[in-house]
C-alpha cells in the first residue's frame, strides 16, 4: 500500500520533487515547442514548393530547352496515372518599367494558365484572379493588350504583419521585357549584324504570391507563346524548358516518377533520328522533391541540426533528473534502511522509488506538454498582441516567407518526447535506488548514532 501512498507523499512533501517536476516540464516544453515549430516550418515550406512545382518535372538543364514536347505531352496525357501536364519556359529577362525607370534581371516564366493551374497551385497564389487563372493575362482595363503577372514582392510592399498593401489599379501599367533569342545550339540568334534581343511591352494584370521568397521577388509570368517567340523557341519545332506533371490521386510519387522516366526513355529512343534529338541529353525526370532539393535541403538540414541540439538538451535533462534523484535518494538512504529493517523487500523498494520517478516524469511531461500546447495555440495571437500593443515584433512577417507560426503538435512526436522524458526519470532513478537498496542497512541506521 505504501508503495503508492509513500511515493505520492514524497512527491507532495518535498520541495525538491517540485524542482524535479519543473525540470522535466521545462525540458518537455522546450523540445515540444521547438520540434513543432521546426517541423511545421519545414512541412509548410515543402508544401509551398510542392504547390509551386507539381508532382514531377521533365526539365532541361539548358536555357535552350528541348523540342517535340507536344508529342511527349500527348503520350503522357493518355496515361491513367497522369492527371495533368503543362509546358513551361524558364528564361532570363530584363524587365523595365517606365513608371519606376528601373531595370531588373528577372526570371521570366512562360506558362499556359488554364493548364498550369491544373498541375500547380498557381491559381491560388493570384490576387485579382484568385481561384481561376484562365484569364489572368487579360488586363481588366483593355482585354486586347498583352498581360503579365509579377511576383508579388516586385509590385507591392510587404507589410510588417505579412500582408501586402494591394492598391487597386485603374490605369494601365506597361512593363517592358527583353529576352535573349537563342538557337537550339545555344548561340544568340543573329539578325543582321547585331544579336537579337527581343523586347516587348506587357501590361500588369495580377501578382502571384507563392509564399516562396525567391520566387516572389524574382519571377514574372508571361503567356507561353509570347515567351517562345521572344526566345526563338517557337517555329517549326517549338521548344520548352520543362513539362510539369500532376499524378492521379493514389499514385505514389516514386512510382509515378519511375513510370514517367520509363516513358521518357522510350520517347527519346523513338525520337532518336530527330534533328533536335541532342537536346534530350540535358533533360532529367525528377520528383518535385529532388527538383526543389537545393531549397528544401538547407531547411531540412537545419531541422536535423535542431534535432541534434535538442537530443543534447535531452541528455542534459536525463543528467539533471539523475542528479536530483541521486540527491533525493541519498537524503533518503536512512528511510530505505528503516524500510528494510521492517522487512520491506528490495523489489518493493524499487517499485516504490521507480514509481516515484515515473510520477515525476508523468507530472512533468503533462505540465510541459500542456504549457507547450497553450503557448503554441496562442503563439500567433500573442505575437500579434505584442506587436499591436508594444510594436514589438518577434516574428517578422516582412521577412519570413511563411506567415503564421506553426502550431500543430504532431501526436507521434509528442508521445515520443513524453516517453523519453519518463524513461529519463526511470534511468535517472535506477542507479541511486540500486545503490540505496544495496547498502547495508545496519550501517545506514548506525549513521546517526556516531
Amino acid at each position, binding site marked *: *500500500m*505504501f*508503495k*503508492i*501512498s*509513500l511515493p505520492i*507523499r*514524497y512527491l507532495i*512533501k*518535498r520541495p525538491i520533487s517540485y524542482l524535479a517536476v519543473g525540470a522535466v516540464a521545462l525540458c518537455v516544453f522546450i523540445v515540444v515547442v521547438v520540434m513543432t515549430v521546426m517541423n511545421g516550418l519545414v512541412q509548410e515550406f515543402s508544401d509551398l514548393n510542392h504547390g509551386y512545382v507539381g508532382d514531377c518535372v521533365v526539365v532541361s538543364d539548358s536555357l535552350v530547352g528541348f523540342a517535340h514536347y507536344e508529342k511527349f505531352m500527348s503520350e503522357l496525357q493518355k496515361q491513367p496515372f497522369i492527371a495533368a501536364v503543362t509546358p513551361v519556359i524558364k528564361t532570363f529577362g530584363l524587365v523595365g518599367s517606365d513608371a519606376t525607370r528601373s531595370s531588373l534581371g528577372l526570371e521570366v516564366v512562360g506558362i499556359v494558365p488554364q493548364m498550369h493551374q491544373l498541375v500547380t497551385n498557381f491559381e491560388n497564389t493570384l490576387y485579382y484572379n484568385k481561384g481561376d487563372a484562365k484569364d489572368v493575362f487579360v488586363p481588366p482595363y483593355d482585354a486586347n493588350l498583352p498581360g503579365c503577372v509579377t511576383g508579388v514582392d516586385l509590385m507591392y510592399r510587404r507589410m510588417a504583419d505579412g500582408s501586402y498593401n494591394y492598391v487597386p489599379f485603374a490605369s494601365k501599367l506597361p512593363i517592358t521585357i527583353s529576352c535573349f533569342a537563342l538557337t537550339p545550339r545555344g548561340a544568340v540568334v543573329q539578325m543582321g549584324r547585331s544579336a537579337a534581343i527581343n523586347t516587348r511591352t506587357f501590361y500588369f494584370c495580377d501578382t502571384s504570391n507563392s509564399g516562396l521568397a525567391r520566387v516572389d521577388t524574382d519571377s514574372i509570368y508571361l503567356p507561353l507563346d509570347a515567351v517562345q517567340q521572344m526566345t526563338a523557341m517557337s517555329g517549326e519545332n517549338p521548344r520548352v524548358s520543362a513539362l510539369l506533371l500532376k499524378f492521379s490521386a493514389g499514385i505514389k510519387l516514386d512510382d509515378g516518377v519511375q513510370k514517367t522516366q520509363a516513358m521518357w526513355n522510350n520517347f527519346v529512343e523513338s525520337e532518336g533520328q530527330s534533328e533536335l534529338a541532342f537536346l534530350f541529353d540535358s533533360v532529367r525526370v525528377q520528383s518535385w522533391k529532388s527538383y526543389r532539393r537545393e531549397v528544401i535541403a538547407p531547411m531540412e538540414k537545419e531541422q536535423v541540426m535542431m534535432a541534434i541540439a535538442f537530443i543534447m538538451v535531452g541528455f542534459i535533462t536525463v543528467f539533471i533528473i539523475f542528479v536530483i534523484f541521486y540527491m533525493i535518494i541519498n537524503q533518503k538512504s*536512512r*528511510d530505505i*534502511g*528503516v*524500510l*528494510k*529493517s*521492517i*522487512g*520491506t*523487500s*528490495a523489489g*518493493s523498494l524499487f517499485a516504490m522509488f521507480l514509481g516515484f520517478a515515473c510520477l515525476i516524469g508523468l507530472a512533468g511531461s503533462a505540465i510541459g506538454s500542456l504549457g507547450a500546447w497553450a503557448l503554441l495555440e496562442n503563439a500567433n495571437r500573442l505575437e500579434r498582441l505584442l506587436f499591436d500593443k508594444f510594436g514589438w515584433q518577434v516574428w517578422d512577417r516582412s521577412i519570413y516567407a511563411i506567415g503564421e507560426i506553426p502550431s500543430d503538435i504532431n501526436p507521434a512526436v509528442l508521445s515520443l518526447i513524453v516517453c523519453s522524458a519518463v524513461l529519463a526519470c526511470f534511468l535517472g532513478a535506477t542507479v541511486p535506488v540500486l545503490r540505496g537498496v544495496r547498502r*547495508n*542497512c*545496519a550501517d545506514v*541506521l*548506525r549513521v*546517526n*548514532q556516531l
Partner: protein
Amino acid sequence: MTKERPFLRCDNLCKSYRLGAAELHVLRSLNFSVANNEFVAILGASGSGKSTLLHIIGALDKPDSGRVIFDGEELLKFSGAKANEFRNKKVGFVFQFYHLLNELNVLENIMLPAMASSSILGWAACRGRVKKRAFELCERLGLADRLRHRPYELSGGERQRVAIGRALMNRPILLLADEPTGNLDSETGNGILDIFDELHRSGQTIVMVTHDERVAQKATRTVRLADGKIISEKSI
C-alpha cells in the same frame, strides 16, 4: 529462568571490521541466549559491539562466522524473502534515534510494518484491522491525541513511543531495543522503561542494549559485553 529452553541462541559469533590495514574484532566467539518471556539487558561500554550484536540478532547484519538459532531455525540460512518476513513479523526494532519517516504521520508510521508486508489488494482487506491495532497501540502508548502529527512535531519521548508502537505493530516474538533511552532525559527515559516493563509483564520477550547501569536494572537479567564476549551474567 535460564533453565528454560532458549528460543534465541547465538553460538560463537565473530564479527570484525577492516579499517585500512588494521582489523577491528568487535565480536570474538560470542555465546548468548535468551529464553521466552525474558527481559535481557546487554550492558557494555560505547563501542563494545552492542549494536553490532543486536543487528545480527535482528537479521540486519551478518556475522563473519557463528550461528544464530531463532525458534529452532538457523537465521543465517534464511533466504532473502524469509529474512524479510523474519524482520517484518518475528522481531521489532527500537532505535536510539527513533528512525521514523518524516513524510508519514504517527498513525502511518505505526502501521508501516503492516503496510510493508501486504500487497495492494491484501491491504484493502486488512486495513481496518491494522488501523484498529494501531489505534490500540497509540492508546496504550499515550499517543491518542497525536495520531495525525508528524514525527518532527513530537518530543523525543513521544517519538520513541511511536517507534515502540511501530516495533509492536505485527506482534513480534522478540523486541530489540538499541539504547532506547540514550537520547532522552532520565525522566522521559524512565517513562519508556516503564513501557518496556509493562510489555514484559504481559509476556513480551525483550532484548535491550544500554551503556547505563541504572537503565539495565529494569531488566530481569543483565549481561555484560566486553572484549567481544559476554563476560558476566546476573539475574534479578
